[in-house]
């Protein structure tokens, strides 16, 4: 549904004519083919709900997993198909009456999101890590999210072997929102997409099997702050609408760079009023920066990452960032290019504090999940450096970085799910001491991920960092590069700390054990490692992909 359609309807209604309105009514056109990825996922999600309603409890898990995986695979296939038809390059276009853009960045990011979701869903479906309770295999989600922790209801639910299979449709909804988010071509779609992928995430945070109090707390914090930020976003949208009289990116863009001359005098007060534009833009930016977890809008990140069930954390950390940065890119490049020079200093500031802040605070973290949260903040800073580059090279470098980062992140959190003791996952760093002695392979894999985060050459992290910094330097942001380099040095410190802990310190007697996962999680981790090494050694192909996809349609 698009606002412009309605607009035309209104104007016609405004005329005084005696003709029957029906034949003047032009039905909106929807290019279903081009929206296929989104539609597939949403359809599957709806189906998932029905499954919850009608399929017997025993069969739900399998059905849901099957359904989800198939849906995501199909959606990915659709994305590939679209790309193959050249929608990513020559015949990129606006679909659904200008609501959604089908172009390079959109497809690239959708592809990334789908793949990442796929591997994340594997970790959702993992049921071998926790010891079976009452003969039922259990995953990392609460038996019955509604039941009070520690209550008889909960015990009963566990005994009955309930599982929260709703997570799968929820994840699918969220994915659907994420697919639309970077493709959104008008502010309304942007807002809706944001909510569509945020709301399920709030819930997913709340349904951990272990440490439920923390899980719920995380959900509350995430939800309240998320709603708060989306309120800002919405207000920004309202202001921009007031400024331009339209919410379509192209329309606003035109007004911003002043290609619209005749202004209805009645509107002179608002139309083209820069105050509206600037405030609105700033508020929307804030909404998006909240999602990418940039300082000072980052404070939800550590708590939520720590509290949420680890598979969800991985999914959230990876996919949300991809989607949000995609939207941010489109907003900056399509709507506000005329504003680059006004926003640049602000963005510089945000990027710098984000890089440094994330890296510095991470130094003293003691919980692996919080550590990774802060590292994700620092990385958001690096990516911002690429965003600011304001050049096609900048776009493609960001796309590449996102792809790299998301897989490593999912892999890392997957490893975190393996290290467990009596209380579930042993996320306190002290527990990780001497892991390298106990199970060298797990430790080695995690070390690879950490090195990639740290951007050590021959890992994908380095390729990404190099691409982004190079773009930034080309775009005249050498200052950001220097800061980035410094904060990388700082960041190296805490990644190294973890490696030291794993390999150089003696294992504790009551140390955690490393669970042997099912092929599902193994796949997730394997994919992570593979991507890390391949993109580290021979990133050329994907760089090409990213640079081909690096053009926004207007």
């Amino acid at each position: 549904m698009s606002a412009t359609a309605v607009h035309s309807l209104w104007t016609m209604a405004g005329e005084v004519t005696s003709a029957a309105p029906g034949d003047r009514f032009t039905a909106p056109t929807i290019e279903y083919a081009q929206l296929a990825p989104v539609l597939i996922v949403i359809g599957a999600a709806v189906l998932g709900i029905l499954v919850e309603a009608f399929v017997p409890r025993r069969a739900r898990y399998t059905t849901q997993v099957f359904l989800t995986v198939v849906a995501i695979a199909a959606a990915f296939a659709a994305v590939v198909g679209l790309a193959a038809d050249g929608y990513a390059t020559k015949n990129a276009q606006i679909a659904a009456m200008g609501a959604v853009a089908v172009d390079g960045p959109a497809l690239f990011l959708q592809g990334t999101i789908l793949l990442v979701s796929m591997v994340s869903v594997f970790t959702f479906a993992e049921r071998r890590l926790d010891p079976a309770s009452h003969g039922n295999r259990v995953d990392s989600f609460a038996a019955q999210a509604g039941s009070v922790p520690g209550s008889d209801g909960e015990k009963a639910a566990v005994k009955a072997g309930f599982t929260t299979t709703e997570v799968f449709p929820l994840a699918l909804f969220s994915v659907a929102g994420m697919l639309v988010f970077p493709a959104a071509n008008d502010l309304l779609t942007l807002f809706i997409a944001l909510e569509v992928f945020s709301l399920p995430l709030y819930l997913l945070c709340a349904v951990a099997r272990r440490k439920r109090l923390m899980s719920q707390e995380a959900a509350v914090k995430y939800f309240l702050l998320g709603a708060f930020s989306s309120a800002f976003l919405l207000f920004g949208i309202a202001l921009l609408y007031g400024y331009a009289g339209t919410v379509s990116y192209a329309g606003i863009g035109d007004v911003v760079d002043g290609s619209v001359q005749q202004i209805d005098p009645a509107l002179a007060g608002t139309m083209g009023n820069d105050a509206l534009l600037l405030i609105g833009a700033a508020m929307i930016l804030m909404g998006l920066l909240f999602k990418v977890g940039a300082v000072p809008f980052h404070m939800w990140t550590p708590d939520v990452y720590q509290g949420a069930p680890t598979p969800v954390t991985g999914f959230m950390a990876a996919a949300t960032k991809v989607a949000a940065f995609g939207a941010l890119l489109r907003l900056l490049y399509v709507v506000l290019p005329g504003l680059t020079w006004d926003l640049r200093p602000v963005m510089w500031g945000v990027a710098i504090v984000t890089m440094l802040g994330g890296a510095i605070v991470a130094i003293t973290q003691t919980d692996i999940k919080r550590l990774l949260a802060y590292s994700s903040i620092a990385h958001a800073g690096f990516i911002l450096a690429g965003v600011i580059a304001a050049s096609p090279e900048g776009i493609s470098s960001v796309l590449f970085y996102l792809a790299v980062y998301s897989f490593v992140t999912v892999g890392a959190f997957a490893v975190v799910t393996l290290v467990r003791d009596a209380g579930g996952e042993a996320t306190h760093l002290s527990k990780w001491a001497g892991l390298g002695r106990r199970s060298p392979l797990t430790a080695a894999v995690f070390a690879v991920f950490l090195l990639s985060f740290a951007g050590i050459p021959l890992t994908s992290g380095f390729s990404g960092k190099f691409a982004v910094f190079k773009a930034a330097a080309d775009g005249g942001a050498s200052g950001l590069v220097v800061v980035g380099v410094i904060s990388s040095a700082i960041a190296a410190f805490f990644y190294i700390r973890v490696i030291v802990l794993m390999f150089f310190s003696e294992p504790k007697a009551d140390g955690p054990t490393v669970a042997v996962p099912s092929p599902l999680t193994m796949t997730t981790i394997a994919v992570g490692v593979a991507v890390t090494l391949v993109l580290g050694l021979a990133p050329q192909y994907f760089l090409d992909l990213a640079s081909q996809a690096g053009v926004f349609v207007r």
Partner: protein
Amino acid sequence: MENLIALLVAAPLLGAAVLLCGGRRLDRAGHWIGTVLAAASFVIGAVLFTDMLGRGAEDRALHQHLYSWIPVEGFQADVAFQLDQLSMTFVLLITGVGTLIHIYSIGYMEHDERRRRFFGYLNLFLAAMLILVIADNYLLLYVGWEGVGLASYLLIGFWQHKPSAATAAKKAFLVNRVGDMGLSIAIMLMFTTFGTFAFGPVLEATGDTSEGKLTAIGLMLLLAACGKSAQVPLQSWLGDAMEGPTPVSALIHAATMVTAGVYLIVRSGAIFNGAPDAQLAVVVVGAVTLLFGAIVGCAKDDIKKALAGSTMSQIGYMILAAGLGPIGYVFAIMHLVTHGFFKAGLFLGAGSVMHGMNDEVDMRKYGGLRKFMPVTFLTFGLGYLAIIGFPGLSGFFSKDMIIEAAFAKGGTEGWILGSVTLLGAAITAFYMTRVMLLTFFGEKRWQPDAEGHEPHPHESPKSMTIPMIVLAFGSVFAGGFFSIGDRFVHWLEPVTGHDHGHAPVSATTVTAATMVVLVIGVAVAWVMYGRKPVPVVAPRGSLLTRAARRDLLQDDFNHVVLVRGGEHLTRSLVYVDHTLVDGVVNGTAASMGGLSGRLRKLQNGYARSYAVSMFGGAAVLIAATLLMRAV
């Protein structure tokens, strides 16, 4: 013929390699291998010598180019030898005395289970010393220069289990290193000045450069010479070097190595001729050391230390002579050779005495040994007469010539130098007489040692006495042989050049004066040590005596200034490195951690405060954007 030159070095080098790598299986034959190879080297030297005599004075120099050592752009360092009369003189001295001392050592070191290694080191020394004197460029000379340093280090510290020996060895090497610094700087200066450091080109091109450059080079060479030849201010190591086995003291620290400095200066004559100031410095050093060594020699009760002082003083003579320029070069070398004979002889004698006295070195515990060791007494006595310059013996001629040359320098300078040399001669006579009297005359003063062994003085075995006898011959006749018809002068002139100068006083006068001071010196010594019995425990003595016993406090100075100062410096630097240099880095890391800790506090877990930060952020964002537009 010139292809033999390399063999001179090869023989002892081979010996060293075989003996040091050979391992225990060679223990029984080791000393013979060493001696034979030393002798072989001497034979080769002799052959070359006869061949050299066969040729005219001007084309006697031989040259052998082995290979290009360090070929680098604009930098040519060759391994090439040059054998002219000067080198030949040294070759004969080194190999000759060297061989004798090898033979001597067979007996002297008989009871040392590491004798094989001792001979290995001796051969190593011979090889290095020969390289030093037959090198045709300063860099190769430098190789020999440090080579002998190494050998001396190994031999002084041969009894490594004695901390004193190890320390003495280290000290010798370090002091020499200071000198070597001078040599290397001199070589660099030559390179930047002449673009080469081969004797030929450098010494010919001295005319093309400024006197300043030459002076600089000269002074650096002098520094080197001071190190190697134990001249003030770098003399401190020689006394301690007596920790080494006596044959070592005889060969290295009396006859050959310590004279390397003289060789260096004489060899570089052309440079010094061009740099009067440098020459003056040389002369001064020589004069000072001459007296310094003599005075120290007077005060020591340790026979070897006394002889060491004398060596220092005698080399002072040589350096002084060398500093006089063309007038003195020849006589410097001549005194060097004669001194090689009699000082080696004296040391071997001292060794023989110690051998007979359970390695007792304190002369006050000797006395009246002439009866027990006639041969030693005889040879030692001849050496004694030679060194004090008794008419007709070697020392007489060589030293007399130097004294004359000193006067012949002319001017006040000449007078001063002349009188210094005369004074030196007097003191020499005094302390040598003292040694003689304390050791061989008077009553026996030795007592049973700690374990109650009464030493049984006895004559040393043939292997030791024969070399002593041979050397005694040398110390008696060498001087005369050289001087008759100025043989030595004519022999060396082509290399060093010679100039008779104009003595303000006639030669006869000088000789007479020398005789007078000689008699005085002997007389005083006899009065002090000959007439009345000598106390076993040294009396406190005058201030000068006490100072002299402590090497005129020069060691104390070194200890306080260099050693202590150095220790403090290093200790404080270690502290600086740890606290400052390292501290800065650790400090940054720590402060980073502290900052992190403080920032962490912001993450206080309250959703509302998070909201505050978001709200504030938003406000800043908006404000900044508006501000940007405003400006």
